[in-house]
């Protein structure tokens, strides 16, 4: 897509195999018409930074015992026109027993990076492991930060030249606290510099908000809870919503 005349890039977040493998695959198929990047969520037993809505989804996926790796493999073909990133918590991706980093990295052909939101908060010492592993699979890095990150760390992350640095705008997904988001995005932008893409997400639920936040210095916006809420009403509703978000960027 031509970015020259657009506010920024659009991404959606969807846990792998949600709401079921068939619908998931349809969403992946159709989304390339509207979004630049898909963020595929690894079902987790402990999605701690997620709000209740997304947590319920994780809970149902985990208890359904769906084989998300094979679902991820099966959508590969549909991912042609659109970039993909995987989002998962540390224990599900790099944890000793359950880690599926390697499997996912080799399952998805045009995977750009694997985003681990708790990596730098709870597992800082494993940063190098993450970078090495990403390199091994020929994918880029991407990092999650919040407004409570040390400046030095954020600047250091930018020096790794990741695909993007993702600023979680709220304390959890789907929340909507009265935080001066434009100001926080401005601080992140300044720390990161111009050479690395700044992604944002958490609580972006309307075209107006999307436009305002991208205009304030972010490059990519991810829509999660609101998209999934619409999806629970039906695929058409979800795509109507994403189309309106997409149109808002022009």
């Amino acid at each position, binding site marked *: 897509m031509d970015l020259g005349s657009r506010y920024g890039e659009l991404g959606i977040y969807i846990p792998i195999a949600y709401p079921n493998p068939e619908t998931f695959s349809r969403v992946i198929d159709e989304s390339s018409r509207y979004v630049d990047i898909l963020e595929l969520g690894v079902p987790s037993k402990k999605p701690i*930074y997620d709000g209740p809505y997304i947590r319920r989804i994780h809970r149902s996926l985990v208890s359904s015992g769906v084989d998300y790796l094979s679902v991820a493999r099966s959508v590969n073909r549909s991912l042609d026109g659109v970039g993909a990133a995987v989002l998962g918590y540390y224990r599900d991706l790099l944890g000793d027993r359950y880690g599926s980093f390697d499997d996912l990295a080799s399952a998805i052909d045009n995977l750009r990076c694997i985003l681990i939101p708790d990596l730098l*908060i709870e597992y800082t010492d494993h940063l190098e492991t993450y970078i090495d592993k990403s390199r091994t699979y020929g994918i880029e890095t991407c990092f999650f*930060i919040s*407004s409570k*990150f040390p400046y030095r760390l954020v600047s250091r992350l930018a020096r790794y030249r990741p695909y993007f640095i993702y600023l979680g705008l709220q*304390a959890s997904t789907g929340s*909507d*606290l009265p935080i001066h988001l434009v100001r*926080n995005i401005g601080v992140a932008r300044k720390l990161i510099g111009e050479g690395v893409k700044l992604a944002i997400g958490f609580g972006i639920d309307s075209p107006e908000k999307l436009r305002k936040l991208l205009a304030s210095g972010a490059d990519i916006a991810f829509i999660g809870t609101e998209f999934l809420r619409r999806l629970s009403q039906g695929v058409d509703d979800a795509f109507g919503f994403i189309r309106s978000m997409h149109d808002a960027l022009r």
Partner: protein
Amino acid sequence: MAPRSRIDGNTDIEVPRYWYNIAPDLPRPLPPPIDPLDSDVSLINRLRELLPSELIDQEFTFERYIGIPREVRELYIEIGRPTPLVRAYRLERRLGTPARIYYKFEGVLASGSHKLNTAIPQAYYSYREGYSELVTETGAGQWGLALSIAGNLFGVSSTVFMTRSSYISKVKRVELMRKYGATVIPSPSNITRVGKGILDREPDHPGSLGIAISEAVEWVMDRSESRRYLPGSVMEYVILHQTVIGLEAIEQFRALDDYPNKIIGCVGGGSNLSGLAYPFYREYVEGRAKLPEIIAVESSLIPKASRGEYRYEHPDAYGALPMIKMYTVGRHYKPPAIKAAGLRFHGLASSLSLLIREGLVRVRAYDPDSVREAAELFYQSEGVLPAPESSHAVLAAIDEALEAKRRGEGITILINLSGHGLYDEDFFSG
């Protein structure tokens, strides 16, 4: 040479124009608050119904400095800021120590403690956003009194849930809160569901700050269009407001051409120690000074930092507030009814917990009897009666000064004398 003034650290300095947010300078990211995994409602989102918007924004700001509103700064001056940095000459002589002991005396503020530093901005933002009733918890009554005064300054009423053991023993502060128009309710109370539930099971429950917080939160939720919940510690924005203490102290030490090697404060939720120490941490991060040894002093009867766990826990007993990552003895811990009631909280602010975890703040725990002896010694030598909470810091300073004597080291020790104990009539009597 005889000192020219007891108030060595002159008060002829400017009251700060900004507060300092430590998060951008921490060695690691501050873990975010989370919802409990089994919760179907977002406690995080619920903060919208509890706190003034401006304070939520301060909690999650990415900025290192936050300007102090003009009205707040003027009130800071009117209620006694800057506070004096006092050299404890007579205590030093009595101990025969080569150490220089200074205390930043927050007890001179109108309410008698550092709590007013955050009560004023919290009441200010609540008033400006149109709320008419400030609701909170209090232990010893220092926070309740500070909020009652601050509310009164802006013409809004205050409702204070006071832990029952203190409600009974700190008679003066209850009276003083009421003089400012506050409604003071012993907690657990029978006006909230949380309180009733506890009283049903245990009619003589002494109360805890965790329970009082739950009651205050419930009270606000019942009429959130006009009420706001205002906490006296633990939140990062509370610490933010308290940084005026340290920012002033740095200027005062500059004027004296001295600098602390050790900074000591008692810890309830962690706000007075952090408020004093964080600006010195900034001096270190920016390469202007060495990092003083920072010592957090808790009661051995509520040993959250020395014997607790570093994990996610709710700040309130019932679990109505989002969980924060902190050192804690657990929200169901039933703290003994010590006179230093402000230290009875089961956890410690997230940023301070992180610094302890990283080894940048040391922890010490003292028993009530030793603390009382230290307070007596301080009173007899300085003529100043420290609050029972602050007396924990005094004892640590005495220990450090005696250690310096053994080593023959002329170090500089700085204590946060977070409050005076003139209304803690239960403290010396036993």
